[in-house]
């Protein structure tokens, strides 16, 4: 399942949603807005999405992942849109399965694919007031 939200991501809520008697392992990835020295004074990121296409592409991505990693039980992407200040989560990804096997590898691939395929764009908003659309680096 994939959701886009303008609200802060309720991480604990989503963890609880995916607790299940069949789930022996849950892997989480949380991406934050950061301002490290190479980020030149970012105060927030602004995310924009082609929402209908994000949801369609996310279903295709989920089907691909389930075929490739049949041991995965659940896949969840929560992505913020709008402005996300430094230190707030912009992305939550959850994978669950009965065992931890394949979850780590699958998470790496899932994140790479979502960053390449989902039509979402981010703009850096900087301390000095300027704004700049950013590219992903792989």
């Amino acid at each position: 399942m994939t959701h886009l939200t303008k609200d802060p991501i309720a991480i604990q809520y989503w963890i609880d949603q995916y607790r299940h008697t069949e789930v022996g392992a849950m892997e989480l990835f949380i991406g934050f807005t950061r301002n490290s020295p190479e980020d030149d004074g970012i105060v927030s990121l602004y995310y924009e999405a082609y929402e209908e296409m994000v949801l369609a592409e996310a279903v295709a991505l989920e089907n691909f992942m389930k075929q490739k990693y049949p041991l995965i039980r659940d896949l969840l992407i929560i992505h913020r849109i709008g402005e996300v200040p430094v230190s707030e989560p912009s992305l939550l990804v959850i994978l669950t399965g009965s065992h931890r096997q394949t979850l780590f590898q699958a998470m790496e691939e899932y994140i790479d694919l979502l960053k390449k395929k989902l039509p979402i764009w981010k703009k850096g908003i900087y301390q000095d007031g300027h704004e700049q659309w950013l590219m992903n680096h792989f």
Partner: protein
Amino acid sequence: MQVKVLFFGPAKDTTGLFHYSYTIEDHTSLQAIIIKLYADFPKAKEVFDLCSFVINKDFASPETILKDQDEIAVLPPVSGG
């Protein structure tokens, strides 16, 4: 027939528009609309050069013939996550 063009990310900022409409004749291709976009928004050329163009959320070849009410989206390189 009418088609709608949606702009996202840097394409939206450069054109200054969320969307734009064209009235088209029968058998107009996606490529014909792309040529119109370059002509109508010359300042966006550098952005358009990097963009993909999709029809109704599906990637389409430039030769695709458009239908009434098709929605074309101008997608710069994505940068989610």
